[in-house]
């Protein structure tokens, strides 16, 4: 006896046209104009965001033209940075940026994961809030204040205690030799590590919290200790997201300017020892851009800026993709 149902269904599907016909009467013409004006105004704001990015790209590309024509791909392979003879090679800066950022990751990753694991899996509930607040407070300190602290506290500690110690124990590797001035690639790596820890640890924490509770319970039910539960049940499932956090941290480290400029020594050389001074892409811009004379010099600097821009975009896009697959999508859960 399913007799009345089809009739009702057709009635409902007939409704929308009637509603649409009633709209002008309800809104009145003034609302229509206002709506259109408002929508266009908001759209312009949205377009402004788009335009800003287009502007950034076009300015960087156009203004780095002279340098691109003069040096081509060799720009990034050249070792000389000679503003007087207008001969520019960006290799030392690329090297400095990569080494200081990787060094920062090497220090920051274990620490950040440790903090995230502690706050989500180990510590008493009452401590969670304050702990993550303190770690995020690290992110609120301006870069220049980190640099100030690094110059007057970190660098003396490094040159008096840490670097002599490293030279004695690990000097044979070649990474820790030379005079321990403190101002060095090592100092840059450490200060960068302190700056990216909040990013990596807060994203790792988010990702760990998304891991389903039953994964933990299953591990515990199989007789795992707490650490085994964390390793097998939690960290394994969060791999992709943690990777995303790490890459996001890398993106920040690559573009970080002030603190690095203040402690890295600013010398365009490629040295194996981490005690030697270096130079990064961002810090050469900070130091030389406002004094750059001559079109080629200026455009060489802008080309470094363009490279930095492209690299950070790729790195950030990759990171976001990884974090998204964990916090929103299904693929990572399907793998687990």
């Amino acid at each position: 006896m399913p007799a009345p149902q089809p009739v009702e269904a057709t009635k409902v599907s007939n409704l929308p046209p009637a509603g649409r016909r009633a709209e002008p009467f309800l809104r009145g013409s003034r609302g229509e104009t206002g709506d259109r004006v408002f929508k266009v105004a908001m759209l312009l704001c949205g377009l402004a965001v788009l335009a800003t990015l287009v502007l950034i790209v076009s300015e960087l590309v156009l203004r780095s033209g002279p340098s691109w024509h003069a040096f081509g791909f060799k720009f990034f392979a050249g070792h000389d940075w000679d503003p007087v003879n207008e001969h520019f090679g960006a290799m030392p800066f690329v090297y400095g940026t990569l080494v200081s950022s990787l060094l920062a990751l090497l220090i920051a990753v274990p620490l950040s994961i440790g903090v995230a694991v502690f706050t989500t899996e180990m510590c008493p509930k009452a401590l969670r809030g304050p702990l993550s607040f303190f770690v995020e407070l690290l992110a609120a300190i301006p870069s220049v204040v980190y640099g100030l602290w690094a110059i007057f506290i970190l660098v003396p500690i490094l040159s008096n205690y840490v670097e002599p110690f490293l030279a004695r124990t690990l000097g044979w590797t070649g990474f820790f030799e030379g005079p321990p001035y403190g101002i060095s690639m090592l100092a840059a790596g450490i200060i960068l590590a302190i700056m990216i820890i909040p990013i990596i640890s807060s994203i790792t924490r988010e990702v760990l919290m998304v891991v389903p509770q039953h994964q933990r319970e299953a591990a515990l039910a199989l007789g795992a200790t707490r650490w085994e539960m964390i390793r097998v049940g939690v960290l394994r499932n969060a791999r992709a997201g943690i990777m995303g956090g790490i890459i996001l941290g890398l993106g920040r480290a690559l573009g970080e300017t002030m603190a690095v400029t203040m402690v890295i020594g600013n010398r365009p050389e490629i040295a194996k020892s981490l005690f030697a001074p270096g130079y990064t892409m961002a810090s050469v811009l900070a130091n030389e851009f406002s004094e750059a004379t001559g079109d080629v010099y200026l455009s060489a600097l802008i080309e470094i800026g363009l490279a930095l821009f492209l690299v950070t975009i790729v790195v950030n896009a990759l990171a976001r993709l990884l974090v998204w697959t964990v916090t929103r999508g299904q693929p990572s859960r399907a793998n687990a």
Partner: protein
Amino acid sequence: MPDPTQTSALHTVPPIALRRRITDHVMTGVAVLTVILVLAPLFAIFAYLVYRGVGSINWAFLTQTPKPVGEAGGGMANAIVGSAFILALASILGVPVGVGAGIYLAEYGRNRFGDVIRFTADVLNGVPSIVIGIVAYAIVVLTQKHFSALAGGVALAIMMIPTITRTTEEMLLLVPQALREAAYGLGIPRWRTTLSITLRTATSGVITGIMLAFARVAGETAPLLFTAFGNQFWNLRADQPTAALPLQIFNYAISPYDEWHRQAWAGALVLIILIVTAVSAVRFAVRRGTFGAA
């Protein structure tokens, strides 16, 4: 039938379990150690900031302009005001655009084009601040032919926009659809609903987003190096080079003079205090004013 051998087997700890237990304890210890290692620099930074800064802040520091090298005294009054000026310019330029773009994304942007803008905002958020400085230099400084507060304001505004856009969107989406529908039902046009109902309901969240963006750019130095440039004297003209607190801290920190180092610490302390007060003042005002309950 209770079997004594079986129960004892359950209670004795096999050697492998002991090793697992030790690993468990060691890893807990390692985690605690990482927390200590991470928090140590935080406390060290704040402790030194207060220790070195408090002794150096005095009336002269807050009211005078910098003295030439060798002369004691002087202060960063012009840099403090300059920073406020540049930040005001940045907010005037950045906040309306950011909030507008956020409104667009939340109310009209549930489509392909909205996704493009959303992605653009995320990309902009990751652009290194020094690169934004270059672009502001290219657009404003090269057009005006000299460094200016406006150029600094433009650079900081570009940095503020993506944060404001994304938080505004998120906050507007939290407003229940039923509120909008209730307004439409009363015959209120859409634009009026968005402004007076949706945006108003989300005010405190939107302002929090704005303050986040503000706090983020307030301490920025890199994009000001070749836009606002710095100035030893008072300046309140948008088309002239202007001193800024972070710039002054940077210049004094890398100088070889003890007196300037002292002032750099004082400046850093003032900078952090200003950021924290600005953010908490606005949050407090928002909570008390518009939303007693929020």
